[in-house]
């Protein structure tokens, strides 16, 4: 601690340079933590889902509808307790950039199947079920757009074309990430009314009596429809969610690569700054050696400076990423539910901070330690 004033004095010698270097490190770590969080959130998204629910979708692709008649046949499969269905609605609110997840569902059966994953007053639930142009929204989505209960909202369809005026009849809180608070549910019937010859269920959600029988139930369902014109692919809700994640392609690799590239670029900036700073002080290194400062001590002091800059950058960058995203309820319009910096990402960020400190301070520190006092004292800027 007694050397702290010396380290601090050197760090604050060029305040602007130190501040800019620290901010560079902070920005790099902020970007790293944020990009890494996209990866971890995507992975986590692929892991949510109830053990007691299964999803039945078209074996051809998710974009193909399934016949409405399947509902009764699904309910007849042994082990299936309840069945509901949903469609991806795909509308925008006012502006294409105001995109968020909307599902056209059969309200009563859908809310029953997901009972326990959300919290919403019973009267709001009833109001939504009752009104065909009613909708319910997550609290996070409501707050994001400044909506209120009873407000009329007009969606513009991108799949089901046209304007779709709906009224907010309920606001729910998510109790499980599978029921995203950044989503809106509208009536399937509302869509069906306008496109009766086209629209059908996009997928079915099944509630199982016994999750242990899920493999048998899935096999029975897919066998049932195997030779029909609309064969099915049945799997766990978790596998269904995971399939959406795979649709992002190799985005994880991309995010990780960009994150590491940013960190490496900033490492060069920080190292350059430390080298410049050390070179300016060569004569002072000579003075300190003359006074009796040993090579190891000087090495440690220069490393402490690099560590100070990296640590300050880490506090700012990792701290900002940890606090900012939850504070603004960021979820990429529902595609990244529960987006946050995980402890694992923080630990990785701290590891990078240590590497950054070592890599940026090592050369100037070695240079200060190895330089002879006489050589250093002869140095003229």
């Amino acid at each position, binding site marked *: 601690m007694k050397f702290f004033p*010396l380290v601090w*004095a050197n760090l604050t*010698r060029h305040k602007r340079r130190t501040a800019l270097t620290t901010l560079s490190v902070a920005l790099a770590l902020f970007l790293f933590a944020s990009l890494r969080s996209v990866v971890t959130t995507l992975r986590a998204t692929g892991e949510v889902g109830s053990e007691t629910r299964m999803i039945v979708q078209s074996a051809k692709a998710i974009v193909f509808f399934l016949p409405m008649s399947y509902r009764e046949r699904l309910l007849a499969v042994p082990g299936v307790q309840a069945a509901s269905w949903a469609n991806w609605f795909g509308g925008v609110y006012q502006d294409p950039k105001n995109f968020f997840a909307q599902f056209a569902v059969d309200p009563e059966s859908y809310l029953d199947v997901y009972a326990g994953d959300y919290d919403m007053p019973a009267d709001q639930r009833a109001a939504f079920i009752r009104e065909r142009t009613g909708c319910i929204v997550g609290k996070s989505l409501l707050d994001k757009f400044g909506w209120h209960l009873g407000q009329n909202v007009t969606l513009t369809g991108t799949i089901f074309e046209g304007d779709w005026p709906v009224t907010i009849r309920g606001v729910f809180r998510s109790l499980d990430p599978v029921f995203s608070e950044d989503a809106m549910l509208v009536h399937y019937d509302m869509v069906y009314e306008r496109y009766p010859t086209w629209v059908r269920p996009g997928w079915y959600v099944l509630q199982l009596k016994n999750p242990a029988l899920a493999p048998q139930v899935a096999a029975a369902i897919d066998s049932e429809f195997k030779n029909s014109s609309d064969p099915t692919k049945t799997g766990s809700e978790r596998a269904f969610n995971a399939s959406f994640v795979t649709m992002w392609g190799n985005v994880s690799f991309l995010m990780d690569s960009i994150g590491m590239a940013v960190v490496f670029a900033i490492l060069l900036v920080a190292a350059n700054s430390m080298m410049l700073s050390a070179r300016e002080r060569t004569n*002072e290194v000579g*003075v*300190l050696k*003359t006074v*009796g400062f040993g090579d190891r001590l000087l090495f440690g002091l220069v490393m402490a400076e690099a560590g100070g800059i990296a640590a300050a950058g880490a506090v700012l960058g990792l701290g900002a990423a940890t606090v900012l995203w939850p504070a603004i309820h960021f979820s990429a319009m529902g595609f990244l539910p529960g987006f946050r910096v995980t402890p694992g990402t923080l630990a990785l960020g701290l590891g990078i901070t240590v590497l950054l400190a070592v890599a940026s301070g090592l050369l100037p520190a070695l240079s200060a330690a190895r330089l002879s*006092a*006489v050589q250093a004292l002869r140095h003229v800027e």
Partner: protein
Amino acid sequence: MALVELENLTKAFSRDSQPIVVFDGLNLEFAEGSFTALMGPSGSGKSTLLNLIAGLDRPTAGTVRVAGAEVSAMSPGALADWRARHVGFVFQSYNLLPVLTAYQNVELPLLLTRLSAAERREHVATALSVVGLSDRAEHLPRQLSGGQEQRAAIARAIVSDPTIILLDEPTGQLDAKSAADVLALLQRLNAEFHKTILMVTHDPHAAQAARTLLHLDKGVLTA
């Protein structure tokens, strides 16, 4: 009794692959409590001699012994520790760290000791008082005059009560009044505190402040 003993001291440099012999078998002693001025033309080896005694440089051959310790045989780590305890060094250009106050500059050698913060404070206050800079403790070097900077540098050199004080042209950048103040301070350190002082100078007037005067020319003592 000799505090500093140089025996068969040889120092040679190689510049542009040309060997330059600064000392070739120099023998010299400085007594404890002496105040010696070392004069000579540029390139005569004055500063090199100071560097060798301070352990900042190593002889090509021969030995440098200070207070019984063979400086020329010490490892770099041991030399740094030894320097911290036994050598006070004053440069022509003061060489105070510009980002530290006079107090912090003077405190530097004490950071290498086991003294507590309170003890360090006491030592620094004493050193600053001896050089007459108590009221400038919190000033940065750029806020001090040249004479004050050199006095702060002397305070840094004496604060750890070293065995020997080595000065390289201490008045070289000072006006007459400031130079006189510094020389009077050195005389006081020698007479009152019995400090052993070796001062390299070009200035005959400064050399008169010492009790012994030596001339060095091309690595050889001439008088």
